[in-house]
């Protein structure tokens, strides 16, 4: 190897890197390590994992490509990046399915060893892209990653198969060098992870260092990039995915309310991980129940809620559809219940691994009868934690099912999360009924308090025996009633109670300009790209504000004033305009919509472009 020559370092505020290879190539691991290192280094980070729908698609095929994208920055960031600055393509299929996202002039590191005839065919290339001008727009680095890795790990004596498995660490090493990152976090991780298999630890270490050295010494790379530390709020941070944060949020809510957590669920992508996470928290008195189907899952939670647990159920679109009848029972019986919908692309089975926001109508309006319930949407992976707590508070204090919306993107991508101070979290005060509330006779299970909420009287409490069910019930006594006016009254009482939740939610602050030309509204996972685009616009002096709605029902009580403060309104959603219809209908306001229903998040550019068009009066 030639001696290392010092290379020039170019400073950039942020960069987006994507590792792409076969599902067997360990790309998720490489990406996660890069994320950790960058986060610990002090950047703000946002990631986007992208794995195949199939468990193990045949090696080398397009269906089998697995990718992991990291956006890291010295500024506040909210998205994993629109386009990729550096792409690592471990085989022809990875190149084929990822190339379109690489910026012009971007860095393209290719593992040439895998560009065999057979692999090119598997990836459906009709020619070898390394020849000809397919890649002329990029800065291409052809590296024999497989061969280098094998050589590097030779000293460990590992077999060919295991040796070649280390090539993700080689690639990672190269990229560490390229972005001038320290190796120690990953080295530490390797030692810990493989403490029982030293030769593997050794091999991965060797590969990592070899990749790094290659960057350092080879003639190939002419420049190194530096992304300096971001100025993030002080605190302890960790990376967290949405599903992890949601699971921890549920545990926290159970603690804060001093209730056991019951989670009834049936596996479904991309919600299953919540069940998996929670099932390992048994020492928190978490009772997970893998039901026989989604209907049993929600019904078990309703039963647990009746019994006094903090009861939750989670699923994705098709499973939520199945739960709707039972959710109606929860609304009629006014029991606390959390329903988590990790949205995925539909309709029907759709694209199970891809995110969308197309379940808003379903959760708000998709039940028989007049059946309103509060709905809150998490805005980022870490935000899932506080969303779960907030939703639990509302469910128990207002005695109502509450829907928590997440999506496949929030669920699986991670961001550095400032760990909250546990002692600072507000308790959820729950007072179960223990005494008869009716001096004149039997306990009144539907006597309401100032919130409009009925008492949560638990079986096991002497003297409060009562019966509930899905038939229309008499005000106060809860007995079955077919009285027309009582029926209507109860519909209004339940709706009023849900509307009252707005008191707990409070007004929603506008980011950027408090009034002006354009208000951009987002909800759920569209927060990131919209916030970024609006921040850029505000920086550029444009008259734009951003309103992010966490609660979709009830809407903030000050929304009319906010809407009135802007000339125009744009609502960005990963659907065909579901919130848009509701806002237009409710406020009689000609709000425009930016829609994308492709099973992938907005890019910042897409939002910015539409904003600019509206500001310029062209749309």
């Amino acid at each position: 190897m030639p001696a290392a020559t010092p290379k020039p370092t170019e400073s950039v505020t942020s960069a987006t890197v994507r590792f792409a290879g076969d599902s067997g190539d360990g790309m998720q691991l490489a990406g996660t390590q890069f994320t950790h290192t960058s986060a610990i280094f002090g950047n703000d980070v946002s990631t986007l994992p992208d794995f195949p729908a199939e468990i193990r698609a045949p090696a080398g095929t397009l269906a089998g490509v697995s990718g992991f994208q990291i956006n890291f920055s010295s500024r506040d960031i909210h998205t994993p990046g629109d386009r990729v600055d550096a792409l690592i393509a471990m085989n022809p299929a990875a190149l084929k399915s990822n190339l379109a996202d690489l910026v012009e002039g971007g860095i393209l590191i290719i593992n040439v060893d895998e560009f065999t005839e057979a692999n090119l065919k598997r990836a459906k290339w009709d020619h070898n892209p390394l020849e000809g001008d397919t890649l002329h727009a990029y800065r291409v680095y052809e590296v024999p990653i497989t061969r280098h890795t094998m050589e590097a790990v030779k000293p460990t004596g590992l077999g060919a198969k295991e040796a070649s498995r280390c090539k993700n660490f080689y690639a990672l090493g190269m990229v560490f060098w390229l972005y001038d990152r320290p190796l120690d976090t990953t080295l530490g991780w390797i030692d810990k992870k493989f403490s029982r298999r030293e030769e593997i630890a050794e091999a991965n270490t060797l590969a990592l260092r070899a990749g790094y050295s290659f960057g350092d010494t080879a003639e190939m790379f002419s420049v190194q990039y530096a992304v300096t530390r971001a100025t993030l709020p002080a605190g302890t941070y960790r990376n967290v995915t949405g599903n992890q944060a949601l699971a921890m949020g549920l545990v926290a809510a159970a603690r804060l309310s001093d209730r056991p957590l019951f989670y009834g669920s049936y596996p479904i992508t991309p919600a299953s991980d919540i069940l998996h996470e929670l099932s390992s928290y048994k020492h928190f008195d978490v009772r997970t129940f893998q039901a026989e189907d989604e209907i049993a899952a929600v019904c078990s939670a309703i039963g647990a809620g009746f019994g006094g647990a903090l009861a939750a159920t989670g699923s994705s679109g098709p499973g939520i559809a199945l739960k709707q009848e039972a959710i109606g029972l929860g609304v009629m019986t006014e029991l606390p219940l959390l329903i988590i919908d990790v949205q995925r692309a539909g309709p029907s089975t759709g694209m199970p691994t891809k995110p969308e926001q197309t379940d808003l109508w379903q959760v708000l309006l998709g039940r028989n009868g007049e059946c309103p319930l509060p709905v809150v949407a998490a805005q980022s992976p870490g935000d899932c934690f506080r969303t779960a707590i907030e939703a639990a508070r509302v469910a128990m204090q207002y005695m109502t099912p509450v829907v928590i919306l997440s999506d496949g993107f929030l669920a699986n991508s991670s961001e550095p999360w400032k760990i909250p101070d546990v002692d600072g979290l507000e308790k959820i005060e729950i007072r179960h009924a223990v005494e008869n509330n009716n001096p004149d006779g039997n306990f009144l299970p539907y006597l309401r308090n100032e919130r409009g909420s009925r008492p949560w009287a638990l079986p096991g409490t002497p003297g409060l025996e009562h019966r509930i069910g899905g038939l229309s019930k008499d005000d106060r006594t809860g007995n079955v009633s077919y009285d027309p006016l009582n029926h209507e009254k109860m519909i209004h009482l339940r709706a009023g109670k849900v509307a009252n939740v707005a008191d707990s939610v409070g007004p929603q602050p506008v980011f950027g300009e408090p009034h002006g030309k354009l208000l951009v509204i987002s909800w759920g996972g569209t927060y990131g790209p919209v916030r970024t685009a609006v921040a850029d616009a505000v920086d550029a002096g444009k008259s734009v504000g951003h309103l992010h709605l966490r609660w979709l029902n009830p809407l903030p009580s000050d929304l009319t004033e906010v809407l009135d403060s802007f000339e125009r309104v744009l609502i960005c959603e990963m659907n065909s305009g579901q919130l848009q219809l509701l806002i237009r209908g409710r406020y009689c306001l000609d709000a425009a919509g930016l829609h994308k229903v492709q099973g992938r998040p907005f890019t910042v550019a897409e939002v910015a472009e539409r904003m600019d068009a509206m500001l310029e009066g062209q749309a």
Partner: protein
Amino acid sequence: MTAVAPTAKDFKSDQEIRWCPGCGDYAILKQMQKVMADLKAERHNTVFVSGIGCSSRFPYYMNTYGFHTIHGRGPAVATGLKVARPELDVWLITGDGDGLSIGAGHLVHTMRRNVDINILLFNNRIYGLTKGQYSPTSEVGKKTKSTPMGSLDTPINPLQVALASEAAFVGRCIDVDGKHQQEMLKRAAAFRGTAFLEIYQDCNVYNHMAWEYATDRKIKAENIVVIEHGQPLIFGAERNKGIHLDGLKPRIVELGNGVGVDDLLVHDETDATLAYLLTQLRYPDFPEPVGVFHAVERPCYEKAVAEQIAAAREKKGEGDLKALIHGGDTWIVE
């Protein structure tokens, strides 16, 4: 609460009963209230859960906690409740449509899990509440509103379904046979694990006399055989007939003429194959067994859940929220 022993009346709620006059459900309700009193059940620790159907109105009439849920889903609600609150005494009331049609899947899974609840399936071989369509237990050729030329589907035998679902306790009794029914309810109440009890119930309006052969005083002795653990299967008004086993084939024999009690099949509640065989004794070819077909104790689901939680706490210590959210790699920004 009350120091005085409760009476059946204490278990009557203040709700007006809304079953048709003559409905078999009345008899069952009465026995249940009696049994509750006999067992000195605590009203506040007792919960009746049900689905939808005439039978599923049962909880409204019991002065305990109650939950009239939605069609077919009672088993799931009861399971969640029992897992959340193992100390409660949970009863599930369901019908042949509620439990075996829309709710069949839930019933199967509840029984295999062996959640410690008591399931009473009121079998009237008809959909009562929706005014008379055939049900999963209706005989082939049944003419109903939805099958004017007769139904085509072979009926399900609820007890066979229970056995195939690995139910730990499987029994059968009859609405109008109060004494035997009380015994069965008490056996079910005492059993730890899912106790599944089929109750032949007369729908007076849409399927009157469906169980005539088993309830008519004049003929029932010939058509019913009461099974008891360790006892030979004897039946008949004169108690002169019995069931004998030829290999795997049951046969009716008359006692006397060289045929003695020793030649008869002896009931064994612990033998699942025998239980299965007994479920296949059907009128008119055989007298139909009533009693406990099968009873074997095995771990209850909600207990095992609690044990895993205890074990996890033992091993990891009581969960520490701070530690949990600080898990994984962390770093400090100053």
